[in-house]
Every structure is written in C-alpha cells, then in structure tokens.
C-alpha cells in the first residue's frame, strides 16, 4: 500500500518537473509592459504602411482596424477618470459612460491624425521600462525625426495579465494632466452634460472632414 503511494508521489514529482518549465514559459509570455506596448504599436505602424489602404476609400477600414488595437492598448475609461479626477464623482453613471466614450473617440482621433498624417521618416525606438510601483510601469520610447528626437513615455498598469496605457507623456508634458487642467476650469463654469456636448461636437467635426 505504502509503496504504491510512494510511486504515485514520485510520478507526481517527475510529472511536475517536466511540466513546470512548460508552465513557466506560458507565464512569462504574459509578458513585459514594453512588449505589450511594442507589439500593438508596431502592428499599427505596419497597418499604416500597408499599401492596400492607399486608396482613400480604404481609409475608414484602416482606421477601424487601428481602433480595435488602440482600444485594447489604451484604457480610455481609466484615462477619463484620471483626466476628470475629483470631478469624476460629480458625473452620474450614465454621464461617466458617455464621457468615457466620447473622450475615447477624441483621443483616438488626435492620435490617429498625428500618426496617419505625418508618419513618414519617423522611427519609434523602444528604450526601456521602469517599474514604478506594484503593477505599474513606465515605458520609455523616443520618436526619431530628421532634426531631433522626441521622448514619449507611456504610463502603463497591469490588469488581467495585460499591460494597458493610462497616460502618455510627450517631452515632459503629461497628456492626462493637460486635459485635467482644461476640464477643471471648464467644469467650474459648465455642467458635465455641457462638457460632453462640447467633446461630441469636436468629434463630429473631425468625422465630417
């Protein structure tokens, strides 16, 4: 009886010894913030370079494909919360949802315009990642241009084994802080509904173009 037990344990240990390296590989694939940033951005860049989308009719299709990727990479709800900061609580849950949606559209538009229009001789270099605190990380990149380099840092946090962006810092200027200053002053005079309306108008104008 006890020998069978020992055999069982031995077998178990052997199995585990074989399995653990496989498991470890599986875990380490849930990877570094740098990789989680680099892969989607490079996919976006290759979509932008793809000659299939050269035709203006294909532009929307290209945009949609990029949007799927950016919505996964950027946590727009988190960005909305951070941009509104203490004002977030004064929004009703419906307004919070509306705001997050329209802010996401606005950010995607500006981001897309930036890279869709100008991306020519620029190269993005992924420099390194710094652990900021538990589950938070700063990934440093730079955009190499003809005459100068522009440092762009991504603040990321890990959720469900996936690193997502909650702020972008360009040349020392935090995007979220910049919006926070604007929203703070707008909300001192206007209601949440009015702010959402302003953002909606801005997004509509963009789509109209």
């Amino acid at each position: 009886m006890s020998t069978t037990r020992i055999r069982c344990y031995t077998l178990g240990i052997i199995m585990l010894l074989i399995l653990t390296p496989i498991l470890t590989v599986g875990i380490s694939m849930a990877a570094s913030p740098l990789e989680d940033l680099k892969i989607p951005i490079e996919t976006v860049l290759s979509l932008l370079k793809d000659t299939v989308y050269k035709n203006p009719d294909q532009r929307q299709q290209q945009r949609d494909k990029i949007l799927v990727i950016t919505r996964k990479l950027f946590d727009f709800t988190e960005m909305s919360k951070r941009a509104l900061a203490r004002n977030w609580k004064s929004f009703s849950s419906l307004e919070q949802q509306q705001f997050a949606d329209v802010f996401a559209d606005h950010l995607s538009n500006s981001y897309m315009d930036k890279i869709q229009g100008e991306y020519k001789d620029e190269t993005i270099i992924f420099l390194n990642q710094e652990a900021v605190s538990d589950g938070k990380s700063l990934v440093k990149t730079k955009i190499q241009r003809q005459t100068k380099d522009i440092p762009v840092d991504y603040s990321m946090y890990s959720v469900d084994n996936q690193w997502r962006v909650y702020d972008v810092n360009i040349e020392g200027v935090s995007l979220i802080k910049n919006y926070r200053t604007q929203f703070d002053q707008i909300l001192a005079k206007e209601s949440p509904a009015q702010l959402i309306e302003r953002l909606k108008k801005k997004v509509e104008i963009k789509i109209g173009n």
Partner: protein
Amino acid sequence: MKKTATILILSCILFLLPGFNAHSADSSAAQTSSSDELDYMNDAEPQVIVADPLFRLNSAVFEFNDKLYFWVLKPIAQGYIAVVPTPVRRGVKNFLHNFGSPVRTVNCFLQGKMEAAASEMCRFVYNTTFGILGFMDPAKDFPHLNPHEEDFGQTLGLFGVDNGIYLVLPIIGPSTLRDSLGMVGDYFITPTAYIETNALAWALKAEEAVNDLSFRIGEYEDLKDAAIEPYLSFKDGYLQYRYKKINQ
C-alpha cells in the same frame, strides 16, 4: 510524514522557479490595480499652477499669435520649404543652433553642471571647426556631446525663483515673467546680439524663426486640435514642459 516531506519538496521546487514568483507577483498586482479605486486622483508630481492676472491681454495675444501663424508665418515657411532644399535648411538650423552654444554653456556652468558645460564647449569648438562654422553637426556622432538645452530661465528656476505670472508673448508664445527675464539675460550672451547693423541682426532672427518653423509645420495644428480649450492647454503644456526641464 512522507506526505508532508513531498509537499515540502514540491513547494520548494515551485518556489525556486523564477516564473512562479513572477506569476504570483503579477496576479496580486493585477488584483490591486483592477480595483475601481486605482489612485486616479494622486500623481507623483504636483500640478504646476501659475497665476494669470493678465488673462485678458494674454488671450488677446494668444489669438493674435494664432492668426499670425495661419496667415503669415505658415505660408512663409511653406514657401521657404518649396524653395530651400532640406539639406540647406538643416545646415542653417545647425549653424544658428551652434550660435546658441555660449548661452547653453554659461547656463550649464551657472547651474553647477560642470560636465555638461565642458561637453557643450567641446561641441561648440568641434562643430565650429570640423563642422565648417557649425553648418554641419559632426558632434552628433558622439552621444556624450549631445546639446544641453539650458537657458537662464531654467537657471533662475533652479535658484528658486518662482515663475511669477503667466505671459503670452507676441510671436514667441507662452512664457512666464521669470522665463521672459531669462530670455533678456540670454540675449546678452548670444553672439548675434553684437552684430552692429540692426537690419542684419533682425534678418538673422527672422531667418531663424522661419527656418525652425519649416521643420515644425503641423505641430501647432495638432496640439490645437487635440485641445478642448487651446489657451488652457498651451498654458499647462508650457508650464509642465518647463517644470520638467528645470528638474532635470
């Protein structure tokens, strides 16, 4: 007994594997940050707030600069790009940037960044000689000679001088009282300030502005487009940018 021993051995093996530790750390991190109360109100760095008592005048100048850009400066720069080939524009940029070296060196020195001051001086000598009066930038191949963009506004900031009030200067754009004073200080150590003929000095200034702009067309439009309230966005952007530079 044996059972306990096996469990012990097993847990030891598991614990020694680097992947297991990483995994446990990962999952706990995921748990804390996925909670709704991610510290979205706290930031590591404080918000820079600068008073804007001249708001009415500032926003008028802001509007003026905006029109000046779209109606005058941008068309000129676009015409300039059409006529002047990129290598020449780059050469002019290098040449005029090289003139700014004394300002950078002095400010590095004043800020106690001796190594930076030395490398800036090195860069100036190297580019002025081997770079044919600075039109070329051979120092680019030596990363440790990278320019240190220091100015007197930053030096004052490092000495603890406050921003004072926010200002929007004609043509130049966002600034503060301190940084404007800094610009005056820097002016006196810029070689071009000592050109005797006024016309030439102004022509050089204009050329610098247009040439610089020729590399940055579209940047202003993007920033303005991304903003909900452009005046506030540019103000905050400028203050954040300067804060970062001073604390570098």
